[in-house]
């Protein structure tokens, strides 16, 4: 098994990509630590008196009726799917946007084509009432 050797490039700012994300990593650890510390402090201070009524699931002040399972509509799934498609489209747009100033007219034409095709999909969803709720 060979190791993948990648030389680290040091851009002029003097920071490698890894050290930048090391900051993000350390920051994330701190961000996790703060609520945990907060909750620990609260756990020490607060009263702990569980009883049946308090622990029951909330349903507007009454006992729960029926199973805890929701009639799930296909509508949610469709919204999520249309979102996936447009999310991927947005991801394609970003590198194009950054390289745009260095490219020629063909870059514009290709992106117009890309967006128009996806917009056509959106129109189809619109007409078929996939974007309605209820």
């Amino acid at each position, binding site marked *: 098994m060979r190791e993948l050797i990648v030389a680290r490039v040091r851009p002029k*700012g003097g920071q490698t990509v890894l*050290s930048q*994300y*090391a*900051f*993000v990593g*350390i*920051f*994330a650890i*701190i*961000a*996790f630590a*703060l*609520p*945990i510390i*907060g*909750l620990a*402090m*609260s*756990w020490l*201070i*607060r*009263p*702990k008196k*569980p009883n049946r009524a*308090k*622990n029951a*699931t*909330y*349903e*507007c002040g009454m006992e729960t009726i029926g199973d*805890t*399972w*929701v009639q*799930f509509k296909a509508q*949610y799934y469709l*919204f*999520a799917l*249309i*979102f996936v498609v*447009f*999310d991927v489209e*947005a991801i394609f*747009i*970003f590198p194009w*946007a*950054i390289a*745009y*100033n260095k490219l020629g*007219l063909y870059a*514009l034409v290709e992106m*117009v084509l890309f*967006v128009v095709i996806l*917009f056509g999909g*959106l129109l189809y*969803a*619109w007409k078929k009432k996939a*974007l*309605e*709720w209820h």
Partner: protein
Amino acid sequence: MDYIRNFFVNLAQSWTTWISTGLPPWAVDVVNYLIVGVILVMMPVIATLTLTWMERKVIGRIQNRIGPNRVGPWGIFQAIADAVKMLIKEDIVPDNADKPVFNLAPILIFVGAALLWAVIPFGRNMVGQDLSIGALYVIAIGSITTVAVLMAGWASNNKYALLGAFRVVAQLLSYEIPMVLSMATVVLVVGTMKMGGIVEAQIVPFVLVLPLAFIVYLLAATAETGRAPFDLLEADSEIVAGYFIEYSGLKFGWFYIAEYGNLLAVSAIATTLFLGGWRGPFVSAVPALGPFYFVIKTVVVIFILMWIRGTWPRFRIDQMLGFAWKVLVPASLANLLWVATAQMIPAPTPVKWFLMLIGNVAIIFVALTLLGQAAKRHAAKHGLAGA
């Protein structure tokens, strides 16, 4: 005197030189990261302490009442009183809740609100890290919030929480696209995703070049943070507290802190992208002024958002989702293509920017006209007034 001109950067530099004498270079980096991390992680907390007071005062005044004025002068210690209250409340975990997930959700939602601050530039060279994919990083952190909401709704073992969580996720997903597209428009004009770079490129604040992108961004951001008028999921009369219905005490507190942290972060990003961030008069000569301009502009944006909250009526969920997909997304796409076309024209930059401005205004005009016609048709169909 020169030291004070660039006060914050010079302070950081002196500190770094001082600790470098005793530690290897990587340890110096780690110590600096820890300090900056702790400062930035406190931003959502600071946001909650100050913005809750500001909001209650502003909304109070809009509704012709005073707002909190008991705890401290003008009620400024109200938030601390609220924080203490949340700390000492009993933490009730419902019976069949999924305990690890239930406990993880508030932590994760706070992480989502806090991590955003790593890329926001407070001044020249005053960024946590100027990541070369800064703009995308911001949106990616938003996905963490979405996951946390779903976890909260599901782990509560409460069908209303679950229903609320699904609706919130649908709302968050729907408004993420217009937000991403308006950011993409700004990135297109500037040519880099670095947040620091975007501020540097704003010789003219982009709100004057791309007003449509600014408006779309503000509306999408209001929906992303779950504020009015898109807050039907927390509306007390509709679904009680929505996905965090079963949370009490400090766990609820973290949801609350995350909401205001997100509000501050989103306003800060709007300032960075559209209002010129830390730019202002004399800032090249005295870079230490940068953070002050930044704070002032962010407070202005926050005030606008609170103003909107106090005055506009709430949307229904189908109106809200329809608005996102049928109005904001096409408008943003049209804007993106127009800006791309304008950028391609071989003219000096001010001319290009002026063309983009004209295009933006035209799209706003067209969008409002179409909306007006659709509203008329809707009113005629349902026999409402205004037909």
